[in-house]
């Protein structure tokens, strides 16, 4: 029986193996089930998500910068355009013997030894299918030599790139602006911005109209492998070149206007009084915008930034000056509208006016005698406007100034515009924590003190005076006929405006007018206007007692700014102008002639280019 016991034992053993085998098999089946479940999760449930990731892996978008739009002036003369330059790149894996290739290239287009060194170093670092740039900024002549030998130059690629150029250079630098490489802060996640050839507008119209100038980058959708090698092209979008931007600016007027300033600094604005279209926007001194597209050097940048006469600042829209006597038209209008004065109300000017403890002087120390509002503007009598300001107060003056667009940005299509300043009682309290003084109203009445305006605002103000009281919105972008609606009226009676306009004509035609000498010597082009002097320094009582120094006797930075605002032709006004010559002294002597010449040129060029 022992054997059978042993056999039973063995059978039990085999049966146990079977049982455990069943368990093991079940376990293995469960293991595969687990894997199948995981595959279901990956390949069915999450499949679309992984499909996206796989496409992100393999599909690469390659962009090429679109040609930037051209900026032209009102007559189509290019102000900012593109010049094609060429560069050569070598693809090491197609080049075979790279050293020999560089030798052959060197004979066609010289390759500096250090550049050659850089190329070889880059080749070592990169994968063999990545092109390495050997030459930059080649002209068409250079590239033609290389292209003719292309059969002997395996793996050599020629690429054209655009370089931004400014044909009129400094004469339109502030209006046109300039482009530069994309700064970190400009990156928006748009991959086009990261392209090395990409340039964006940094100032002027280049910046304001950047979006339309940029166009749409060409896009190639390619399949790449894990190393970044392009396997094939999947899709191609040729993109759109940037649009041409036409400005209202007249480049020739800009150039001649800049010449009128000579060595003087300052700003001038010429504007169409009906449309607000700006024919000239001059800021002196200027700078060469061509320094920027390729990256300005540190030395040049610091020189421009720290120059005392601020060449980078567009003084026509960002320079804030006391308007001086050019402000008197608004005070006169405020006085006439308030009823406190009439066109014939006489005041007597003795050259000084006492108010409380203060003495307020007229620029004409001998006094103007008896004057009405017309005479006061023609002769720029200060005492008259002190008296008007005393009667009507600062609030009425401020309200009138604001109706003409002063004290706030005009919304011109250029970056960096400043608002100027029209003070009132609330502003004084807010700013200095002290109440308004009546004497401050008097000073404001002649456009000094806290009052600040930009040349642009003064030109727009003059346009509004000349066009019958309509608030134009200044713009440098050319607008075609239908684009311009009639600007809204600011609600001043035409008779009242006519009084002031007539007085402004008197300034340049009356024998006593302050700008008689500057009148345009063409019968049909004559201008009306107003001189102004903006005090840079307060005249002290001590100086008054002895003798007020003439401008020529003071150091330049203490001399007054010279201003002139005007319009022409007087019969049917078309243009308004404002000129400020920094530290130029008197407005009649320095600023009025420039304004007159600008208005004359504007009318001449209008005649020459008129469609009839």
């Amino acid at each position, binding site marked *: 029986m022992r054997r059978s016991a*042993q056999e039973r*034992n*063995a059978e*039990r*053993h*085999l049966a*146990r*193996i*079977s049982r*455990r*085998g*069943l368990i*093991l*098999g079940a376990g*293995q*089946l469960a*293991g*595969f089930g*687990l*894997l*199948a479940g*995981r*595959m*279901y999760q*990956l*390949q*069915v449930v*999450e*499949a*679309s*998500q*992984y*499909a996206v*990731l*796989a*496409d992100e*892996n*393999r599909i690469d978008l390659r962009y090429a910068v679109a040609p930037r739009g051209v900026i032209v002036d009102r007559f189509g003369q290019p102000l900012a355009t593109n010049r094609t330059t060429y560069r050569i790149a070598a693809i090491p894996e197609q080049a075979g013997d790279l050293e020999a290739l560089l030798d052959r290239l060197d004979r066609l287009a010289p390759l500096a030894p250090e550049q050659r060194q850089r190329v070889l170093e880059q080749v070592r670092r990169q994968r063999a299918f990545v092109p390495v740039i050997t030459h930059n900024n080649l002209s068409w002549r250079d590239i033609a030599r290389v292209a003719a030998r292309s059969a002997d130059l395996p793996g050599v690629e020629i690429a054209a790139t655009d370089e931004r150029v400014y044909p009129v250079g400094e004469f339109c630098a502030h209006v046109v602006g300039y482009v530069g490489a994309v700064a970190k802060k400009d990156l928006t996640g748009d991959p086009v911005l990261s392209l090395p050839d990409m340039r964006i507008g940094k100032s002027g119209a280049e910046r304001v109209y950047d979006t339309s100038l940029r166009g749409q980058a060409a896009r190639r959708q390619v*399949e*790449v*492998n*894990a*190393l970044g090698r392009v*396997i094939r092209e999947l899709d191609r979008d040729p993109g759109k070149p940037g649009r041409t931007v036409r400005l209202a600016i007249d480049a020739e007027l800009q150039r001649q206007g800049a010449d009128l300033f000579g060595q003087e600094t300052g700003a001038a604005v010429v504007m169409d009084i009906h449309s607000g279209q700006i024919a000239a926007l001059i800021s002196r001194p200027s700078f060469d915008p061509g320094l920027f597209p390729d990256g300005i050097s540190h030395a040049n940048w610091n020189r421009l930034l720290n120059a005392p006469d601020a060449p980078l600042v567009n003084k026509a829209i960002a320079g804030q000056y006391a308007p001086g006597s050019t402000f008197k038209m608004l005070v006169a209008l405020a006085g006439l509208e308030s009823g406190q004065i009439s066109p014939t109300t006489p005041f007597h000017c003795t050259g000084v006016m006492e108010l409380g403890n203060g003495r307020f002087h007229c620029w004409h120390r001998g006094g103007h005698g008896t004057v009405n509002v017309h005479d006061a503007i023609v002769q720029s009598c200060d005492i008259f406007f002190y008296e008007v300001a005393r009667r009507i107060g600062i609030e009425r003056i401020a309200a009138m100034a604001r109706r003409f667009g002063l004290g706030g940005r005009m919304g011109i299509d250029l970056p960096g515009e400043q608002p100027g300043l029209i003070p009132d009682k609330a502003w004084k309290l807010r700013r200095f924590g002290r109440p308004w003084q009546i004497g401050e109203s008097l000073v404001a009445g002649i456009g000094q003190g806290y009052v600040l305006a930009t040349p642009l605002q003064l030109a727009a103000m003059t346009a509004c005076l000349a066009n019958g009281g309509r608030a134009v919105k200044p713009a440098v972008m050319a607008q075609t006929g239908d684009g311009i609606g009639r600007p809204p009226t600011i609600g001043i009676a035409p008779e009242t405006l006519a009084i002031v306009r007539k007085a402004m004509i008197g300034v340049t035609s009356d024998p006593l007018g302050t700008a008689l000498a500057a009148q345009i010597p063409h019968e049909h082009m004559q201008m009306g206007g107003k001189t102004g002097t903006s005090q840079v320094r307060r005249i002290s009582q001590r100086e008054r007692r002895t003798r007020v120094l003439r401008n020529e006797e003071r150091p330049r930075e203490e001399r007054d700014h010279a201003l002139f605002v005007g319009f022409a032709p007087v019969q049917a006004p078309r243009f308004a102008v404002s000129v400020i010559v920094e530290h130029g002294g008197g407005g009649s002597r320095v600023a009025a002639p420039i304004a007159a010449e600008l208005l004359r040129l504007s009318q001449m060029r209008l005649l020459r280019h008129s469609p009839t």
Partner: protein
Amino acid sequence: MRPLLPPRRSQTALLQARSREDEADTIWRRVLRMDWLLIVLIVALAGIGLAILYSAADGSWQPWADRQAVRFGIGLALMLTIAATAFRIWRRFAYVFYAAALLLLVAVELVGVGDGSQRWISLGFMNLQPSETMKVALVLALARYFHDLDANQIDRAIALIPPALLTAVPALLVMRQPDLGTATILIVLAATVIFMAGLAWWKFALAAILAAAAGPVAWQYLLHDYQRDRILTFLDPSRDPHGAGYHILQSKIGLGSGGLFGKGFTGGTQSQLSFLPEKHTDFIFTLLAEEFGFFGSILLVSIMIGILACCYAVMARCQSVFARLLVVGLAANFFFYAFINMGMVMGVLPVVGVPLPMVSYGGTSMLTLMIGFGFIQSANVHAGRL
């Protein structure tokens, strides 16, 4: 004291009886008794492998598919030869095979070449990885040991010392290479055979607890930095987006983007554009799943389940402890290859460098697997005879 081994029967009588049986049993009869379903499944699996290798080489037989085809041919011949050979021969020489495999493992320590965790002996026409052959040899030796062991003795502690040594020596050698994955598989394989042999449940539970307790110690002293890295990366793939984590991520992208029906033969973007690493070896399953989708991967898993099912059917037919343990052990070896490889590429197991059985490019694993199937076939052919 009770004898450890059962009393031996008369050797001469047994041998005479067997030689008579062998004469009557012609080669043709043996071939007919092979498990032909298993052979069909094996050929199908290897055929899929060759097709994927063809795709991995961007639609070319070079450099992988042609060589793998030759190896499979050799493997097939080896399997049929082993299958036709009398099964008792394998039992008799089990320890000899084990000793030979161990010798190779020691030899690879001395004269082996390789980089990183892979060590092999160059045979000219192929590189032999002794750690792979050791898997089959270990199963052979353990099956033989428990076959000889009295079933009642198995739960005595002393009876477990020899199998422990049989396992520990090669496992330590492999770990020294260092190849943590294969060492682990060796231990798990041994545990499988011991479990099949009938060791009490609670002892496995105890061993598991001990292993868990030993984990931190092993972490500190036994593992290399890169092995710790791999496990950490497995737990959190994003900590190493360019190394092992990158491989897992790219593999998952490949699998997932395959979707239901795949991107088509040779159309897998992840693999063809080289985003997928090791696409012809460890990550070959991803290529298959990317190009043939969920249905392709399920088909592959089904074939593997079919192969395992055949193995268990063979086991049930066998009437000896050795045959049953050997068949189940070899089946388990096949299973672990497949499970660990697929789990790895799907991101459910760490990256340990285990090939997909019969599919991955590589000679040693293909040949050892075919030898293993040879033993299983031999067991089937001779199931009725001890």
